[in-house]
């Protein structure tokens, strides 16, 4: 138990435990980029923990100091001189070695929509636009049903019959098609945003943050305005999500 009171050992145990929990305790596994970020923060916190008072700091550096200077620790020193460079070298190798897949990329969460688009030679304002089909509540089911047909006919191949982005063609794409079941996708967006994405597809994405690597086709030539609104209604209805509403303008005086 006396050994456990050593700050150095405590620090090492916390780091090892944190790694084990984060690496093996989260399912599906956390991406390596996030794991590294978490471990860096925990390392910082551990350093704060061991150095936040003098006694603790002395207890932490004691074993390091004795390992570096005490004659009887020479075998350990030699072992560390061999093992540490090997570990660093192995890590460098894993980072630099060519892999059969594309390296990970920074991706933007949502592309910023333009204020307006040209839809079939008509100016269409994205900002503030509402789904006109929702005004007629009596026809809601009819629109959703038609939207479902449109989805099955055109979208299911990539976005999947569960709307989870796992369609037949999905394994061929990187990044994978959008998962509409994820509360971080369509639930965060206004319907007008979806209208823009469906109408203009990958080629209509803004120049910022390129390359987008999107294979989403522009549907404006294949679907009418009404059909696009219908399929949007289906997406929200089938996933149980609510579209984001526009905020009321509070700045009429500006």
């Amino acid at each position, binding site marked *: 138990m006396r050994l456990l009171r050593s700050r150095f050992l405590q620090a090492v145990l916390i780091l090892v435990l944190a790694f084990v929990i984060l690496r093996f305790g989260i*399912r599906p596994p956390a991406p390596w*980029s*996030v794991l590294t970020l978490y471990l860096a923060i925990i390392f910082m916190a551990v350093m704060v923990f061991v150095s*936040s008072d003098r006694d603790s700091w002395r207890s932490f550096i004691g074993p390091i100091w004795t390992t570096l200077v005490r004659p009887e620790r020479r075998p350990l020193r030699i072992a560390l001189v061999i093992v540490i460079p090997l570990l660093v070298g192995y890590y460098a190798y894993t980072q630099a070695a060519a892999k059969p897949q594309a390296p990970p990329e920074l991706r933007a969460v949502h592309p910023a929509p333009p204020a307006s688009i040209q839809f079939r030679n008509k100016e269409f304002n*994205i900002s503030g636009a509402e789904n006109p089909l929702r005004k007629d509540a009596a026809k809601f089911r009819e629109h959703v049903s038609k939207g479902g047909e449109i989805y099955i006919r055109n979208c299911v191949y990539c976005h999947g019959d569960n709307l989870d982005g796992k369609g037949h063609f999905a394994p061929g794409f990187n990044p994978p098609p959008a998962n509409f079941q*994820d509360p971080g996708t369509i639930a965060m967006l206004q319907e007008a945003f979806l209208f823009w994405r469906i109408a203009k597809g990958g080629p209509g994405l*803004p120049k910022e943050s390129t390359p987008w690597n999107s294979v989403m086709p522009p549907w404006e030539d294949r679907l009418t305005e009404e059909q696009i609104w219908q399929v949007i209604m289906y997406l929200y209805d089938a996933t149980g999500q609510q579209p984001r509403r526009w905020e009321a303008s509070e700045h009429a005086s500006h």
Partner: protein
Amino acid sequence: MPRRSCDCGNKRVFREGFPIVTFARRAVWLLVFCGVALTVLAVLPVDAQTAQNAAKEPAYRAFPVFGSRLAVWAVAQLHLNFAAFILGVPIFAVIIEAIGWRTGEARYDWLSHELVKLTFAAFSTTALLGAFLLFLFVGYYPKFWTYMTSIFFPTYWVYALLFFAETFTVYLWYYGWNWLSGSRKWIHVGLGVLSNLFGTAILVVANSWVTFMMSPAGIDESGALKGGVWAAINNYTWMPINIHRLIANIVFGGTICGAYAAFRFLGAQTQEERARYDWMGYIGNFIALSAFIVLPFAGYYLGREIYAFNQTMGITMMGGFMSWLWIIQAILIGVLFLGSNYYLWLGMERIPGSERYRKYVPPMLIILTVGFMIWATPRSMVVTLDEARAMGGTHHPLLGFFGVMSAKNTVVNLMILTTFLSFVLYRRANKIPTKSWVKTGMAIQWAAFAAAAGVVVFYGVYGYFVESIIRIGFSVYQVLAVLAAIVLVMAIDIPMFKGARTTGQIRWGTIAPHSQYVLILLAVTFTWLMGLMGFARSGIRQHWHVYGVLRDSSVDAATPALGYAANVITVVTLAFFALVLFIFWLGGLGERGAAEVHGHAAPVIAGGRDDMRA
């Protein structure tokens, strides 16, 4: 030069005189700047003929080697750093002076003078950088500058006049320190207040230009002013920026003063000097931390207004190509929270009796660390294709919950509460309350903490079950709960510890030296953060000088990549600290010279008494 003396409160304070040559040199610099500014104002095109002539001018000129954008960016950022410092520090300098005046504690007067001395040294540099920036705009972006002038010309005069008023008030405030002491101290404090009012007015005028570029208002389809200039000034982002910058300036000023104190502490030759600068560093950190606690709320207000002005701009900032900046921002703010608390915990070592509170450090550290991790969790992660497939997309089914605002607002509020708890424990470290109602008071305080944390967590979790538009409003309840807890706890704490029994004096100057590097780290981190967030604010205009009105058609119209921007900001931050270090060094040099003449340097001993804490 003979030593002059002043009677500040109940202690006698000595201060060196200031060579008239220094005064004259500064006055000359000031006159040069004002002359340049007036010359530029005089030659600006204001009538139709000169406007036509201006139209024949090239829209852009190329700055040699670096390019115009980089030149303007670097100089503007440097100017802003110095301006933030000289506008932020006097705000708390005058408060500290007023405390010294009312309590009769001479060390507060010394500290206030020391702070103003620092800003004074930076005054000319700020003015010169401002003039340089003006030259760059006029010379390299003439079309843009002509347009801005067509909108804001009346404000230039206001700005110049305010600058005169600010300069001479600060001069009088600084040089009249001894003259306006004793019974005339109230006039001196009044001058400090006045200089702050002028300084803040300068800030809001300059902010109107910057915010107009982001969210133009008061103009017609062609971009010309429709009515009065007020409509252009009072645009969507003007007031949020005013508030955000004012608070951020105080934080920034506090961290720089903390870094200055650390610099002096590390180079101190005597225990007395170490004690003085240890105390000054503590005050700097305290000020920075106090203002920093409310800064996220001001930032949130600014973000909301950006969204309200233009949805596209808002998405570009938070969800589009600027979104990764917020992860870097989260990491930097996490470092600031962790660093500030760490400094307080290290500082408790110099307080006898603080051992009672050490047991709180690990749980507080755990809350801060978990909060930091959640805050830094990206919504859309950097993943390989295999990882993405395992997760079912770029959003992790579990960690993805940490990537949205519900989680982030929750943890930042808990981190603020934890930091406040750190401060409360520090404050009472060597005190034992003697009031009869201590138990009740303590119980109410803990209940206030628990209730605030409960409200924050409740709305954080509930936010996942409501639509976005409702969720946004929850952040207000969370903020109000935290602020209410802070107010309530302090309202109980102050009377509860009044006349408390002490467990020993604070041993100023005995703090672990590595704590001073934390102060320097906080200053560097905050400066870097300011540059980074400034890039985000400016960069969301993308290829527009004035958003939606005046397009950027220069060779630099593309928005810089984040890596490039981070490199530029790093170099500018290094340049800023090199200049600041030079100013710090000059400050020390002046004192050494004075010490040779007078036999000793700054005479006021700060600290040493247990009731002398802020």
